[in-house]
C-alpha cells in the first residue's frame, strides 16, 4: 500500500480524497495555485506544494509542475480527482514513466474511452446499444453539416474529447449549424485543446442514467448500480439521485451487465462511470450508451450513500494492485440518496457565475446529510475555477425521506456575500413533477418559470433583519477587497 499520495486537484474533490487518505493512514500532499494558497484542501494536507499561477494551465493542468511536486515530496501515487488532468492519458503515462501510480485507469483504457468516437466503436463491438451519430474524419463545416443532415435533426454537437457538457450544442435546423459549429469548436479547443466535433441524434425527453463501475488489474469488474442525472442545465448536472425512478429491476440488470461488458472490453481498471440515455419507462425502456467517464464522478457520494462503500478507498486499493473489495453479489442498494450541487451562480442573471468572499457560510449538520465542500466562511470564491462550492447529499429509507431531508438541510444552509443556487434547489425539491419523479433532461428549462420566480422583492421580515444589521446589530461584515478578513475577530464584545 502507498504511504504518500499527491492529490492533483482542488476544491471539494481534493478535500474529499484527502479525508479518505488520512483515514487510511496515508500521508497526503496537496498542490495549489496562487489563487488557492489559503484554500481548504491546502490546509487539510500533511504537506502542500505551490505549483504555479492562478490560471489552470499554469498550475492544475501543468503536468511538469505536478510531477515535480510528486518527486520533491516523495509521493508514490497521484489521485487526479475529476476534471483537470483526470482523463488525460498522456498524464497517466507520464506518471508511470516517473515511477508514480496514477490512481485511475491505464493510459490505454483512457485513450480508448476518452475519445467519444473510439468509445462508440468499442460499445458497438461489445454489443452495447448506441445513439445514432457520426464523427466525420473530415472536420470541415461542410462535412459536419452533411453528417448532421444524415443523422437527422435535431442533432447534438459535442467535443470529441472532454465532457462536463462543455462545448455541447443542440441544433434544431440546418441554418443554425455554421454558428453552432464555430462556437462548439472554439469552446472544445479552449477547454480540451482539441476542436474535433461529434454529431449525434438528439434523443427527445431522454433521461440520463449512469452506472458506476469499479475494476481491478486482475480483470474483475463490478457495477454499483445507477445514478439518475436528468436534472441538468445546459448539460451540466444540478441534482442526482439513486435509485432512478425510471429503472426497474429488470432494466437495471440489463444496463448493469452492459456497463460491465463495456468496461471489460476496454480493459478498464479503477472507478469509472458508464453514461446512458434512457428513452421510455418500465422493463421495456430503451437505453443507449453515451460515453464512459474514466474517473471518479462529482456525484459519486450518492452511490456511497446507498451501497455503504468508500469509492475513493476502493480506488486506492485497486490502484495498489489489490482485487475489487466486493463481489457483485455483496453489493446492494439500501434506501435512496439525492445530491444537489451548490454553485456560485445567479439563476436570475442566466446562471451567471459569481465570484467573491463568502461573508457568511454555514453548513447544515443533521441525520442522513453529508456535505462535501471545498470552501469556508471568509474564504474567497475565485473567478479562475468552476462554480461548484459544495455537494449536499441526503440519504433516506425512501425517496420521499431523502427529499425531505435534502430540503430541510438546504433551509439551514445560509451562504451570503455571493449569489448561489440554493433558493432554486429548494424550489426544485418541492416541485410537483420532481416530487412525482417525472423527470427528463429538459426539466430545468421547461419548469424555469416556477423555479426562478420573477419577483425577488424582499419580505418584510428580511427587511427588518437587514435594518438591524445596518444599525450595527450583530451581523457579520466583509468586503470583497479584504480577503484576510476573519469573521471571528469581529464578533468580540458586540452587544445589541
Amino acid at each position: 500500500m502507498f504511504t504518500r499520495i499527491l492529490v492533483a486537484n482542488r476544491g471539494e474533490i481534493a478535500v474529499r480524497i484527502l479525508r479518505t487518505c488520512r483515514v487510511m493512514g496515508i500521508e497526503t500532499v496537496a498542490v495549489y495555485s496562487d489563487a488557492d494558497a489559503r484554500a481548504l484542501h491546502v490546509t487539510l494536507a500533511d504537506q502542500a506544494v505551490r505549483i504555479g499561477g492562478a490560471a489552470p494551465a499554469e498550475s492544475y493542468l501543468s503536468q511538469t509542475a505536478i510531477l515535480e511536486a510528486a518527486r520533491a515530496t516523495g509521493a508514490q501515487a497521484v489521485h487526479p480527482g475529476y476534471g483537470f488532468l483526470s482523463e488525460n492519458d498522456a498524464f497517466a503515462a507520464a506518471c508511470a514513466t516517473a515511477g508514480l501510480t496514477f490512481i485511475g485507469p491505464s493510459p490505454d483504457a483512457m485513450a480508448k474511452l476518452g475519445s467519444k468516437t473510439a468509445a462508440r466503436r468499442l460499445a458497438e463491438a461489445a454489443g452495447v446499444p448506441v445513439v445514432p451519430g457520426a464523427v466525420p474524419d473530415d472536420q470541415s463545416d461542410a462535412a459536419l453539416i452533411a453528417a448532421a443532415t444524415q443523422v437527422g435533426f435535431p442533432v447534438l454537437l459535442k467535443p470529441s474529447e472532454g465532457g462536463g457538457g462543455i462545448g455541447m450544442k443542440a441544433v434544431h435546423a440546418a441554418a443554425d449549424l455554421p454558428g453552432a459549429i464555430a462556437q462548439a469548436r472554439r469552446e472544445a479547443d479552449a477547454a480540451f485543446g482539441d476542436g474535433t466535433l461529434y454529431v449525434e441524434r438528439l434523443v427527445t425527453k431522454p433521461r440520463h442514467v449512469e452506472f458506476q463501475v469499479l475494476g481491478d488489474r486482475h480483470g474483475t469488474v463490478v457495477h454499483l448500480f445507477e445514478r439518475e442525472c436528468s436534472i441538468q442545465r445546459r448539460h451540466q448536472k444540478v441534482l442526482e439521485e439513486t435509485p432512478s425512478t425510471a429503472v426497474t429491476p429488470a432494466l437495471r440488470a440489463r444496463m448493469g451487465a452492459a456497463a460491465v461488458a463495456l468496461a471489460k472490453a476496454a480493459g478498464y481498471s479503477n472507478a469509472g462511470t458508464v453514461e446512458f440515455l434512457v428513452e421510455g419507462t418500465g422493463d421495456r425502456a430503451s437505453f443507449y450508451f453515451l460515453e464512459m467517464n474514466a474517473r471518479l464522478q462529482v456525484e459519486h457520494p450518492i452511490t456511497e450513500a446507498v451501497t455503504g462503500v468508500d469509492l475513493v478507498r476502493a480506488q486506492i486499493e485497486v490502484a495498489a494492485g489489490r482485487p475489487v473489495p466486493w463481489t457483485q453479489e455483496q453489493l446492494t442498494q439500501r434506501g435512496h440518496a439525492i445530491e444537489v450541487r451548490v454553485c456560485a451562480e445567479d439563476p436570475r442573471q442566466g446562471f451567471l457565475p459569481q465570484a467573491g468572499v463568502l461573508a457568511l457560510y454555514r453548513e447544515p449538520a443533521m441525520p442522513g446529510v453529508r456535505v462535501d465542500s471545498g470552501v469556508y466562511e471568509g474564504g474567497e470564491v475565485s473567478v479562475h475555477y468552476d462554480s461548484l462550492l459544495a455537494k449536499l447529499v441526503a440519504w433516506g429509507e425512501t425517496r420521499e425521506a431523502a427529499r425531505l431531508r435534502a430540503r430541510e438541510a438546504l433551509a439551514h444552509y445560509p451562504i451570503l456575500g455571493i449569489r448561489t443556487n440554493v433558493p432554486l434547489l429548494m424550489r426544485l425539491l418541492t416541485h410537483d413533477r420532481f416530487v412525482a419523479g417525472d423527470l427528463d433532461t429538459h426539466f430545468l428549462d421547461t419548469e424555469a418559470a416556477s423555479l426562478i420566480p420573477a419577483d425577488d422583492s424582499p419580505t418584510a421580515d428580511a427587511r427588518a433583519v437587514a435594518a438591524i444589521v445596518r444599525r450595527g446589530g450583530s451581523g457579520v461584515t466583509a468586503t470583497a477587497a479584504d480577503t484576510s478578513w476573519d469573521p471571528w475577530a469581529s464578533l468580540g464584545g458586540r452587544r445589541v
Partner: protein
Amino acid sequence: MSDRTGDLSRAESRETTITPLGAGRFLLSRDGRQRVAYAAQAGGATWVFLDGEVTVIALAPARAIAADEHASLAAPMPATVVAIAVQPGQKVAAGDVLIRLEAMKMELPVRSPRDATVVAVKCREGELVQPGVPLLELDEA
C-alpha cells in the same frame, strides 16, 4: 428607500420580534412561531437568509436606468477577454457580439445594445477585466 418600505419595515418589526443571537444569526418570533435568519453585509449590500431564500438589499438605491447601456459593455464579473470581434470605426448592429469573455469555464458574449459605430476598444485579448470597467466605447446614440 421609499416611505412605503420604511413603514412596512417598522410595522413588521413591531409584530415580529427579532433577537440577535450573535455570529450573524437572528431569532425571529411571531405569534409564537420561531424562525432563524442569517445576515451579513458584503459588497455594499445587506444579505439575509431566511427559510432557504436569500434577500440582497442594496445600501444605496440602484443606479438610474441610463447606466444600463454602459453596463452591457462591461464585464458582469471578473473575466478573461478571449476574443475581440470588432475594431474602432466598425459599424455594428444591435445584438452583435462585440467581445467574448470567459469566466469560470463559461463563455460570456458582450453584445451591442444598439446599432452603433465602435469608437474605441479598451481591452486586449487575454486580459483579466473587472466588472463595471468599460471594455469598449460606442458612438453617441
